[in-house]
């Protein structure tokens, strides 16, 4: 609460989206093992702070919704609604009496539980046992199902009043269609209403199982303690089965442009397509190439051309988000409604030029220096490290992935960068989504 008055960052959006896709650094010793009932564990010992960060991920995201759009989201939220032995209130007290911070969440690929706790015996083991019960034996009480269904409907309405969220939803629908990535992870009003407790329990029992789980542990523990922690967390889980592979992503056969009216001063624009899956072999080259185009913050081409030269936007970025199936390449920005077409034209032109000519040697060198030189920064906290370990474990990347990444980046040349970008982003049909901007004339006169 002391920091609530931090408000105006020069660049905020975009940077956030990048974090998830930035691989990190050499250095820390990543240990790996599998628990007795089949959960994979990645662990880094870090004794500087008397605390432990843990993330447990399951292939239990919206891509597993099946006939019940929104069920992964609801099941994840319901985990905090109590266990077979504790009410939601008792569960919250059990964590907070020990000063632990525990949360659950879900996205398209994953559902997860994460916590941090002080590492002394008195706090940690009690917290871990409660988290284990919560993951394995949640109660899903009827009153909580009703309340959280209402909350999910409210979230849907919240999405409907946000042009940025509307654009995201339209983008994923246009790119992925009927593929499991295509629908809104919140579901629809009807699908939420139709979910029964039995459906939720079935979803939980299928996906929140040990062989569908990955653990990332970073903190003030030795290997024996970490093994004990992994055991405590996973032992109550059913062994189960890993989630099956997802179906292939459909290919677009022509460019698609989606325009949706919205009474905002700015138009929210997304341009992109399905790109590559996690584990893509040319990922370092693609990462460097995108860094030059729009991933490198203040020094990227898009930032320079659209903001620094023309003042058309506050934030603009591009990223590739590799997922279990090919995730999207996205360029995103917001601009005053009456400037949207102009900005879209400039961005498309920049993208085509970049596809055609690739990065210059000096741009590539700068990007590589930024990425490799910035490595220590990306892993300078336990919570950062836990995030990377979690990603590596979930997508089955090797334990030396972090350690090798700087070298792989350093080896990228202009030819490889251009080829990887062409392969992953290429000339295949694209989706452009433009939402809102209708209030530009009244709400946002500019200074032109």
């Amino acid at each position, binding site marked *: 609460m002391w920091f609530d008055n931090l*408000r*105006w960052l020069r660049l905020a959006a975009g940077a956030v989206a990048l974090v998830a896709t930035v691989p990190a650094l050499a250095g820390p010793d990543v240990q790996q093992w599998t628990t007795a009932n089949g959960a994979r564990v990645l662990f880094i010992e870090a004794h500087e*702070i008397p605390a432990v960060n843990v993330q447990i991920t399951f292939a239990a995201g919206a891509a597993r919704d099946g006939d019940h759009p929104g069920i992964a989201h609801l099941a994840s939220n319901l985990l905090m609604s109590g266990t077979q032995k504790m009410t939601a209130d008792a569960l919250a007290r059990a964590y907070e009496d020990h000063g632990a911070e525990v949360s659950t969440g879900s996205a398209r690929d994953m559902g997860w539980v994460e916590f941090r706790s002080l590492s002394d015996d008195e706090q940690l083991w009690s917290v871990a046992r409660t988290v284990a019960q919560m993951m394995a034996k949640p109660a899903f009480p009827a009153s909580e199902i009703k309340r959280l269904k209402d909350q999910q409907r409210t979230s849907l309405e919240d999405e409907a009043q946000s042009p940025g969220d509307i654009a995201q939803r339209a983008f994923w629908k246009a790119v992925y269609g009927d593929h499991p990535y295509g629908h809104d992870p*919140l579901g629809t009003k009807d699908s939420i209403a139709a979910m029964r407790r039995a459906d939720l329990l079935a979803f939980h029992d299928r996906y929140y199982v040990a062989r569908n789980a990955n653990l990332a542990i970073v903190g003030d523990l030795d290997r024996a303690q970490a093994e004990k922690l992994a055991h405590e967390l996973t032992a109550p889980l059913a062994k189960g089965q890993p989630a099956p592979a997802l179906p292939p992503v459909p290919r677009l056969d022509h460019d698609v442009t989606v325009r949706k009216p919205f009474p*905002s*001063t700015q138009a929210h624009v997304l341009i992109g397509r399905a790109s590559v899956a996690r584990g893509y072999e040319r990922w370092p080259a693609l990462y460097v190439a995108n860094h030059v185009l729009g991933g490198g913050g203040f020094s990227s081409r898009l930032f320079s051309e659209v903001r620094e030269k023309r*003042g058309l936007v506050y934030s603009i970025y591009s990223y590739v988000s590799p997922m279990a199936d090919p995730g999207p390449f996205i360029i995103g920005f917001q601009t005053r409604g009456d400037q949207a077409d102009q900005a879209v034209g400039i961005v498309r032109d920049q993208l085509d030029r970049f596809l055609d000519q690739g990065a210059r040697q000096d741009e590539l060198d700068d990007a590589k*220096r930024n990425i490799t030189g910035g490595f220590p920064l990306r892993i300078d906290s336990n919570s950062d490290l836990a995030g990377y370990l979690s990603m590596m474990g979930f997508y089955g990347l090797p334990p030396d992935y972090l350690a090798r990444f700087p070298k792989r980046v350093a080896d990228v040349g202009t030819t490889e960068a251009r080829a990887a970008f062409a392969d992953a982003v290429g000339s295949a049909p694209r989706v452009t989504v433009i939402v809102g901007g209708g209030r530009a004339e009244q709400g*946002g006169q500019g200074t032109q």
Partner: protein
Amino acid sequence: MSRSLCLLALLVVTLPVAAAASANDEFHVDQFRLDNGMKVLVREDHRAPVVVSQVWYRVGSVDEHRGVTGVSHVLEHMMFQGTDDLKPGEFSEVIARHGGRDNAFTSHDYTAYYQEISAADLGLCLKLEADRMTGLTLAPDEFRRELRVVQEERRQRVEDEPRSLTYERLRAAAYPSSPTRSPTIGWESDLKNLTIDDVARWYHRWYAPNNATLVVVGDVDPKHVLALARKYFGDKKARDLPSRSPASEIEPRGETRLKVHAPATLPYLAMAWRVPSLTTVDDPHDVYALDVLSGLLDGGRSARIERNVVRGSGIASGAGASYSPIARTDELFSVGGTPAQDHTVDELEKALRAQVEALRKGEITVDELERVKTNIRAGDVFQRDSMFYQAMRIGMLETVGVGQAAYEAYREGIRKVTAADVQRVARKYLTDERLTVAELVPEGVSGKGQATRDGKGPIEGQSDVVR
């Protein structure tokens, strides 16, 4: 917490609560002052070979007068647009080439610039910061373009964000007379009329070593940092700083209510009481008690708002409380949220008032008081995981004027807060006289938005509705 529901609009920055830890791990900061008045504060953290370097200026929107609101923040943008030695944008390019990242932030109370970079490159950061402390170009062309960027920023963060818009209006209504009322990003009309001369005046008035604090956290030796600071900032001349107007605010005389109409589908309620901060309070124990009170209401899922208003009665879909005691002026103690399906803003207001009323009656158990303190202590340990937030806290304490000692005093003070203290401050400060209530009235999102009357909701009188 549900995916896209930002509960208290601008308020919810879910960073760990700062604060108390056991007395044996004191948070040590080396403190120096250059001959020209610039402060240098260093915190060693040798976990990784990196450093966070921040230069803080004691100038923000509370220093701005009518007509130039937002000028501190526009100047912050211009600080990246070139000096005698650097082209526009080159500052960030140089930092990026060295593997670093840089940015800046402005608040009501301060403007700060930072780099996160390899510890070996600290000298580079200080050299560049020293250069732009006095050598800014402020070219008219760059200004015109950057002003458009800031206007886009305002649209993105406020105009098109109904809850931000509501909270902005709430603040303006809660502080009718002092500069505390205006938003850091500035009012739209002021931004439109701002000139390069306004920005230049601001720069020459406030950017001087004796109005600045360098904060460095990371893998460094404090003496070396001091030597680098002397090398790069040592020859800067101190400047006579203008006297600051005392930003005094007229006494609240009764509850203020307003409605904000905006293109939206969900209603939203924000209630805020004018309360003191660490710098304006007569007795800091009041601030410690208010912070614990905030924790009782919203210090986690077991806290009262989540337990009683979100889960128990189910009146709120999401709700929370917020209080930031490190400030140069009085602050707002805020509660608010979004009503659940089939519930109204009126019901939510009643439910939130009932939570406050229970505290005023002293209905506080020893258990929950201990839980709040435990979580504040644990949050302090967790926070040490981030060098950036260590630097933030050091810089804020120094720049608002309470100094580093205030942190130890705070940790000690939190430990001693009793149920009676919480009850006392609830009665003293969370009164209807000090309260402003803002309601976001959603006008739907179909059509082009003409119905929004330019996004400006009427302020419904500043009446004397007392209890």
